[in-house]
Structure formats: structure tokens, C-alpha cells
């Protein structure tokens, strides 16, 4: 029985319609959705596990696998695309050895391609652990990753 999950369920009054918000809060704490947490949610909300699985796999915000220490979000929105985000993404993929949606085997990095961070003037943009890096070149992107411990 995960106390943190219990607290989250209480925050939303065990209401079924807040399933997605509940999953987001759990994801924020554990950086993924542990199976035990999902079972706890299923029991508390009275929602069948099959439906929770359906929701957890439908939305991109959720991960059922543990994620890496550093979260990299590369913007592949249209404006960044037009300014060359594809090359930046490829250089990152090459550097870490994973593709968007994946986590490296050492659980150091998780990479995601996201659509529009809303900083189109700085394109190409990526966010690493919440910090924004703009006007990226392939070299600059790799440099930033190399600086992550």
C-alpha cells in the first residue's frame, strides 16, 4: 500500500472522473506508473484494470516503464522542424543510443519528442530536466547532454 498514492487518491476524493489527473500525480512522484500503484487505483476507484491500462497506454504523458534520471524533451513542432530540429534530434539519438519514447539501459536518459513547447522564436528547442535550451545546433545539443552527470 503506497502511502503517496493513497494521499493522491484522497486529494481527488476517490472520484472516477479524475483518473487521468490521479495518474499524472502518480507519474510525477514515481517518474512512471508502477503496476502496484495502478492496482491500488483500480481497487480504490472501482475501475477495472483493463480500462486503466487502456488509459495509461493511450496518453503520451504516461510511462509504464521506469524512466531515466534525466528527461530530455526535444521539440519537433512545425516551427522547430522548419529550423532544423530533425538533425538535432538525430544527433541526440546518436549520442545516447536511444529513440524517442525510450530510456537507455543505464536509466540515465529518457528521450521524448514533443510537439511545440511554445518557444518557437528559440527553435530548435529542447528541455532537459525542466531547463530550456534554445537556438540549438547539433553540436550544442550534444554538449549539453555530455554535461549531464
Amino acid at each position, binding site marked *: 500500500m503506497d502511502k503517496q498514492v493513497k494521499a493522491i487518491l484522497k486529494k481527488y476524493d476517490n472520484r*472516477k*472522473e*479524475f*483518473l*487521468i*489527473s490521479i*495518474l*499524472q500525480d502518480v507519474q510525477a512522484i514515481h517518474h512512471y506508473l508502477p503496476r502496484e500503484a495502478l492496482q491500488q487505483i483500480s481497487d480504490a476507484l472501482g*475501475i477495472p484494470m483493463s*480500462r486503466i491500462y*487502456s*488509459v495509461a497506454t*493511450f*496518453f*503520451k*504523458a*504516461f510511462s509504464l516503464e521506469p524512466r531515466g534520471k534525466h528527461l530530455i524533451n526535444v521539440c*519537433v*513542432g*512545425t*516551427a522547430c*522542424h*522548419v*529550423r*532544423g530540429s530533425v*538533425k538535432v534530434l*538525430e*544527433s541526440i539519438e*546518436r549520442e545516447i543510443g536511444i529513440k524517442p519514447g525510450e530510456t537507455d539501459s543505464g536509466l540515465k536518459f529518457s528521450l521524448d519528442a*514533443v*510537439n*511545440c*513547447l*511554445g*518557444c*518557437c*522564436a*528559440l*527553435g530548435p*528547442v529542447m528541455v532537459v530536466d525542466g531547463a*530550456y*535550451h*534554445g537556438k540549438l*545546433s*547539433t*553540436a550544442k545539443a550534444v554538449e549539453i547532454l555530455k554535461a549531464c552527470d
Partner: protein
Amino acid sequence: MGRLKSPGELATLRQAILAKRDPNRPCITVCSGTGCSAYGSEKVFATFEAALSPLKGKIDLRRTGCHGFCERGTMVVIYPDEVCYVQVQPEDVPAIVASVRNGKILERLLYVDPVTGKKITLEPEIPFYRNQQRLIFGNNRRIDPQSIEDYIALGGYDALAKALNGMTPEQIVGEIKKSNLRGRGGAGFPTGTKWETVRNAPGEPKYVIVNCDEGDPGAYMDRSLMEGNPHSVLEGLVIGAYAIGSHEGFIYIRNEYPLAVENVGIALRQAEEYGLLGENILGSGFNLKVVINRGGGAFVCGESTALMASLEGQVGEPRAKYIHTAVSGLWEKPSCLNNVETFANVPLIITNGADWYRGIGTERSKGTKIFSLVGKVNNTGLVEVPMGTTLREIIYNIGGGIREGKRFKAVQTGGPSGGMIPEQHLDLPIDFDELTRVGSMMGSGGMIVMDESTCMVDIARYFISFLEEESCGKCVPCREGLLHMREILDDICEGRGKPGDIEVMMRLSATMKDAALCALGQTAPNPVLSSIHYFKDEYEAHINEKRCPAKVCKALITYSIIDEKCPGCGICVKNCPQEAIESQGKKKPAVIHSENCVRCGICYDVCRLDAIEVE
């Protein structure tokens, strides 16, 4: 702070707030929108805070919402004169503070007009701003989004007071209908008609929902409004709820906008505190409860029925709308869903009247529209203009023309549901119907400018790939159609295009347009159809000649060294991730081995002598 119990109390509060503020006292404002945050505006603000603490009472400091001129962040504007400093760094803070104390201008931080070369001192005179009409967006730069009193000081919540105190719900619906306000989320449906339908629909309770799922890549207008002036949207929401008879509201914000979630949350709490939300609003007897719900990362949830499914805790799968959501929506109850910008227009219409509103815009598209002008344009940012402004005026007079002196090729509007508009239509007045007429659409307001170095086939492929990722997968035409469309476009871009590919894509497009379940699938073919219509020659070059005229599609280009320009410095050799470049020794040009080259473009980026060419 006691809850306001009447419009009179609101007016009194406003007087009290203004009395405490000296309009002549210098105030340094720092833009704190996400764009400027990415430039480090938080640090700039913190540095100012420290520098100004001994000067409390002499110089004010305020964080503001997004100014919209994202190309020149971090923006610092000094009131009351509105002196504008651009690209401010923390190191500039002492100099700025000194200049404010001395009443001098810091020339080196002023905006320089790239056309005239002249420095411009005041923000409103910068061409980017001067050519706009910032009715909705303008207040972002004058308020701290986390301060309800800033909003009230500017006249905020007066529209709500007028609506609750002097108008019946039917009158409000009538005024919105008369104004011809059309939805700003993309479809442009008449807002007044929607409100009337919900009002008259049988069933309780009725729900009112703000759609802030802004999913079009490249569009971030709603984000800046919700981050920068959440009360303007909230005020419109309360007026709307009152008009339709709803006491329960939802604000659906996409997960990727944490600052918007935070600032809207603060706004809701403050509005409750001040009696502008919750029970007995302004003593009128009207109650409205509003909660924030976050999206889970799905573009399709911007579609009304998918959004409502997601609000119910289900997967975001759309359903048929033969019975409109206005009649049977959230939990099968009458629901009014409107876009952020649509709600932000409401207080203006109530305050100034429908006739005033109709004086702005074109025959069938009234008011202003906020666009996100991005891509290959000089002045990237958020732009608000009256409907009817031409594309040329936006891209050139406000946008400052194409970057790096390149040639305009097309502007994409309406996101993945829209189309490419080429040079011949640059004088098109922007309007819901005009944009549809040329094969695009207004959409939420994304305006992506492309130049000669953009490959239109690649852009079509980009949009189809995006939609393939985002399709909910429920219906056959969208799920299977996007898959095959993307495969064909991949083939074309990678040199495997075949004669007949265009016809196959046209047929797929017809099936998707006619048979897909929701607007995502039905409009998905638009980028393909419009690019084929206007840029067929590019498709034919890719398919028949295996050539990419814009030199973008990797499989169809080669990188090579321009011998005359290469001094053999070896930088490219060192940086090539595939070790595909061979050094021939000092003072001799290097050689790129095409077989090993993956067209990553790193050599092109690192070469400082322009010695690499792409063909």
C-alpha cells in the same frame, strides 16, 4: 480581503487599488512568459529584485505576462514611458537601474529596426507592435498574471459586473450573437448560437468548459493568454456560464503547459477569495464552481468529444456528433465548450457592445485574432490583428520579412488541418472563409512561414507523421489511411516514389475526408492536398527525377566540399559522426565519402568558411 458583494464594492476596491499606485513612479517590468523564461528571464527578475530592494517605494518591479515579441526576449519595459529594452541579461541590470534613477535611456539595449537601422525607444513604436491591434493580448504586458488586483486596476471584472447586474442571460446571449463572434479554436462556429443551444437544451446540470488543449504544433497563443492574463479568460468563462445557466465549469489545460496550470490555479483561488467566483458572485446570487483538469498528452483531445471523454476519465476517443455536445456532451448533459481566446473576447463585447465589435474585422469574421507567427520569419512571436489584415501585412510589416534574406515560399495556417498558402495569395485578407477558399483554414492561429529552403513534400510528410502519432486509432479511414499516406510520402522523400503515387494519395484523401469519424481524420489530407495543388512540381521532381529542389530530403542530396574554399583545417573531419570525411593533409581540401555520409549536416554547421555545399 472580504468577498465583493456588489458591483459598487468592485468599483470601490478599484479606486482603492489605484489610489495606492502612483502612475508616475517608475516601474520596471520583466516579461515572464515561457518564451522569455527560456531566455533566462527568471534570473533577470531575481537580479532586479536584489538590486531594487534598497530602492523600495522609489522604483517598482513587476513580472508580466508574455509580450509576444518572443524573438527579442528577455523583454524589459520601463513605465510610465514604456521604454523598451530587448534581449536583457542579468549583467545588464545595474545599468538599467542606474538609467531609471537618472532618467536616461540605455541606448545599447534598445531595439534596432532592421530595415531603417534606427533605434526605437518606446515599445508601442516598435513596428512589430505598432502594426498590431492588441485588444485581447495587450494587457499581458501591463499586469502580473499572479495578481488579481493588477487585472482589476485595468478595469477587469467590470464586464462581469455589468452582465450579472444589468443584463439577463438571454440578453447576454443576444449580445454575443449580435457580435458575430466566431469560435477561435479552429472551426469558427458562431459562439452566440452555441450558447443559445446550450441554454435551451433540456437537462441539468449544464457544463461550461474552456478548451486549452492547444495542440497545433507552432501555435501557442492560448498558452500565453492563460499564463499571462488568466483573469481575462476567467471573466469570459463566468459570463458564459451565467448566460447558459451552468454552475459547474472545467478548464482543460494540456499537460505540457505547467506555468499555465499554475497561473490559472492562482487566478481561480484569487477570484474565489474576492467573490468573483464560487458562491454568490458579486452578490448576484449566481454560483459557479470551476476546476482545472490536465490533458494527458494527446492532440486528439482538442476535439470536443474526445476532450469530454478525457474529462470523464476515459480514453480520448471522439464519437459521432449527430447529436451535438451542446445538447448531449459531458456525461450526456448539455455542455458548452469554447476556446481560450473565444472566452477572452467576451468581456470586451459586453463592455463595449456588439456594435463596436462588429466595427472590427470583415463581413463574416469580426474582431481580432491572435496568431503565432513562426518559422522562417524575422520577428517571431504572437501577433494580434483585426480580421481582414492581409498575410503580406502580417509577414512583412509585422514579421519583418523572411530571415537571412531568403525568398518567401509559403505560409502554413491551421496546423495539421490546414494548408500551405503560396506567394500568389499573399494579399489575401485573413478571414475564416477566405482561408478556406484557398485550401487552408484559420485553425487556432498558427502561421508558419516557409522559405525556398523548405521542402513542401517534407512538410506534408511531417504533418502526416504527426497525425499518425496522434490518431486515436478508432476508425479505419484515419488509422489505416494515415499509415499508408505516410509510407508513400516516406517513399517519395527517400527516392522510392513511383508514378501514380499522387493519384493514390488523392484517393486515400477522398476516403479520409468522407469517411473519417472526426475532424482530425477528415482534415488530415489537407496539407497533402494543398501542397500537391500548389507545389506539384516539387512532388514530380522527387518522384520522377529523384531530386529535392529545396535540398532537404536526405536521400536525394549529397554533401560535398567546395575545394577552392577548403583550407584543410580538419574541423569537419573531427566532427563527422560517421568518420565519412577524409583529410588530405594540411592546405589540401578534405573529401566527403558519400557512401558513409548520413546527411546529418554537422559538417555544414561547423564549417566556418562556407566550404561545404549541398546539392
